[in-house]
């Protein structure tokens, strides 16, 4: 793990203690008194404050933990190298409980109580949707790391950007050629019955049918479901490929029960790693996955031809070659997603440097600077791979990885081109006023 001693993240606690001490007369009342939650100027050179909306509790907590670790590691690197425009980054982390209402409140807190420069870091789409309107109204740049299609679909606003991680539509569409050419033409899809799953259903089936494939059955699993076997009989017998994606705490049960259902006669299986994110591939009951394929946002296992950038990133965050924490081999990371935090922070840095960012008055300049970006080469700043940012849709595009489970490890089998992941623009945010 990264050395915590030097990390500049103690402000939260300090403020809290101050607030508590001052408000000893009554916890509830103290918050109502003006000024107490505010900040004293401790540093001579004002730090750049990045509000970090993190899923510490609620269903996103397993992801939030690794988003947090990646963010801390990245900030430490950037600060050690001189910060942004000579100013240190200070992360102000607030838990959003993976809840859209609390998410909006947290953004308000960043804007008007912590006086953050930008806010950043949200993963779950519903929290993004709940928070983005408030970010827009507060004129607070809001950099999400969510892989939802919300930003690129035009549903949000000019202050919301997703420059550090690709969106589900491009990921899913890029899988269609590989599946139809290598695995089979008749697919049954299994996905969660909410918006994220529906995106998989709609975009994949369209792209797959355009290539002459057929979707035999679409099995939508209700959220909060904990047992899955009863749904598997709906899989048609002539299925050649199972396409599965699942999220939430029950993912391991889902994959395990799928294996028990098929027994020795399974079709080809293609899954999104979301179905096993933060879960050890070597868990008991997952042996049947050997020989099946997974989409990975970023290969969890260090590959043979690992780039020097991945090596450095892995080491900085504290992830071993199997994608688990270096201090606890059982603590598997959310490797396919969390690189987005690292890359987004570097983009914020680059944007602020390009805009010569001085303070909240320059927020619109920062957004324009990011909108002006396009090519992002494979580098220490972008360890997952090269990216192509679309300033109009506020969405980044990049390589997608397909890995094959081999001897209990994910081995890279195919890398898509960026072109495979592109689709037509659905919005032009630059036409909106600030």
């Amino acid at each position: 793990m990264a050395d915590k001693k030097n990390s500049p993240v103690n402000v939260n606690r300090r403020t809290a203690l101050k607030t508590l001490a001052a408000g000893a007369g009554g916890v509830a009342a103290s918050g109502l008194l003006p000024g107490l939650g505010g900040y004293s100027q401790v540093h001579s050179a004002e730090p750049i404050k990045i509000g970090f909306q993190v899923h510490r509790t609620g269903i996103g907590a397993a992801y939030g933990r690794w988003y947090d670790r990646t963010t801390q590691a990245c900030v430490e690197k950037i600060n050690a190298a001189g910060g942004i425009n000579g100013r240190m980054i200070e992360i102000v982390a607030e838990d959003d409980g993976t809840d859209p209402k609390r998410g909006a409140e947290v953004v308000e807190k960043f804007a008007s109580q912590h006086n953050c420069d930008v806010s950043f870091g949200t993963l779950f789409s519903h929290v993004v949707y709940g928070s983005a309107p408030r970010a827009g109204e507060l004129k607070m740049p809001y950099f999400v790391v969510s892989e939802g299609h919300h930003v690129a679909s035009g549903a949000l606003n000019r202050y919301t950007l997703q420059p550090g991680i690709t969106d589900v539509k491009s990921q899913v569409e890029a899988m269609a050629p590989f599946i139809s050419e290598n695995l089979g033409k008749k697919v049954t899809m299994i996905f969660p019955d909410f918006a994220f799953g529906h995106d998989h259903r709609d975009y994949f089936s369209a792209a797959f049918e355009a290539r002459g494939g057929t979707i035999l059955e679409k099995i939508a699993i209700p959220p909060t479901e904990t047992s899955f076997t009863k749904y598997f009989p709906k899989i048609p017998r002539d299925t050649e490929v199972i396409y599965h994606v699942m999220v939430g705490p029950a993912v391991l049960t889902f994959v395990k029960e799928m294996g028990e259902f098929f027994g020795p006669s399974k079709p080809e299986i293609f899954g999104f790693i979301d179905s096993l994110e933060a879960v050890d591939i070597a868990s008991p009951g997952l042996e049947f996955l050997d020989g099946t394929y997974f989409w990975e946002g970023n290969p969890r296992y260090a590959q043979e031809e690992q780039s020097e950038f991945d090596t450095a990133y892995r080491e900085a965050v504290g992830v071993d070659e199997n994608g688990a924490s270096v201090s606890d081999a059982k603590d598997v990371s959310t490797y396919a997603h969390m690189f987005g935090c690292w890359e987004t922070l570097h983009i914020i840095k680059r944007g602020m440097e390009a805009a010569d960012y001085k303070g909240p008055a320059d927020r619109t300049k920062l957004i324009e600077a990011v909108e002006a970006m396009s090519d992002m080469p494979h580098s220490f700043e972008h360890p997952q791979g090269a990216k192509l940012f679309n300033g109009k849709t506020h969405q980044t595009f990049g390589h997608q990885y397909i890995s094959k489970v081999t001897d209990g490890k994910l081995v890279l089998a195919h890398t898509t081109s960026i072109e495979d992941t592109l689709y037509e623009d659905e919005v032009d945010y630059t036409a909106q006023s600030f």
Partner: protein
Amino acid sequence: MKDQLRTSLFHLLIIGLMAGLYFTLPEYHSGVLARAMVLAVYAMGYNLLFGYTGLLSLGHALFFATGMYGLGLAMQHLDVGASTGIVFGLIAALVISTVIGFLALRTTGVAFMIVTLMFAQAGYLIILWMGEYTRGDEGFAIQASERVLAGIDLSQPDNRYFAALVLFGISLLLIGWVVRSGFGKTLVAIRENEERARMLGYNVHRHKWVAVIISGVLSGAAGAAYALLFGYVGATFATVQYSIFPLLYVLLGGAGTTLGPLVGTVFMYYLIDLSSQVTSAYLLIAGVALILLTLFAPQGIIGELRKRVFPWLP
């Protein structure tokens, strides 16, 4: 009558005080208060049923969500303005609470809790199931440019605050009037002893039904206002958790008091907000606080005040 007048004057004073707070509080806290007032209306609707009529519902999120989606879906898919959206939200809440009230009131006590819970759960699942229109759990945003009511831009902090205050004020005066009226007193009589109320010749079922409808419409109004003022419509608001919130707000603030819902809402907000600065497990602190409150202030904050200091509190 004197009673009515005094209650109304007291409530007007509170409304004036809330208006004054906008000019004295820093931006963050006035924003918090705007949201708290909307949620307090939800809790006030809940309180009419729980605090005054003695019916514990575990499904009020359904009414809140009905108002929210009534407005949100109309604005999103029928292309109507905010004022028509509000009408849609209120009518939807009226229809749903009338139907649910009719069905659920065949039961009492714990069975009533479960029936309301089940209807709310079905409502939540229906929102997910109709994902094509609702975008399921993810929900959708209502653009700031559409959130304009009678020429007033509700995405601006001051407009938002006073819009929330208008809703809160109307609801407070309405509730104050209802609970001091003969109707409200009958509700309390039903709460205290349903058999006796029936023997005295009151139509208990109809009184309860009307209480469910008023309660449901107020909750729906809060849901519609939330969508309009904060620009987001989502299925989280239809989950069980959001049915339990108003119960907590009311119990903390004081069941059967007119101001309890607001006090409970604000208290709960700051409890979570402040403790989240100390620890990521802020709900731990919230949990301990809840236990302490039940041990030492069982009537809720306003309830204890009324019991110990100000017996005249409505």
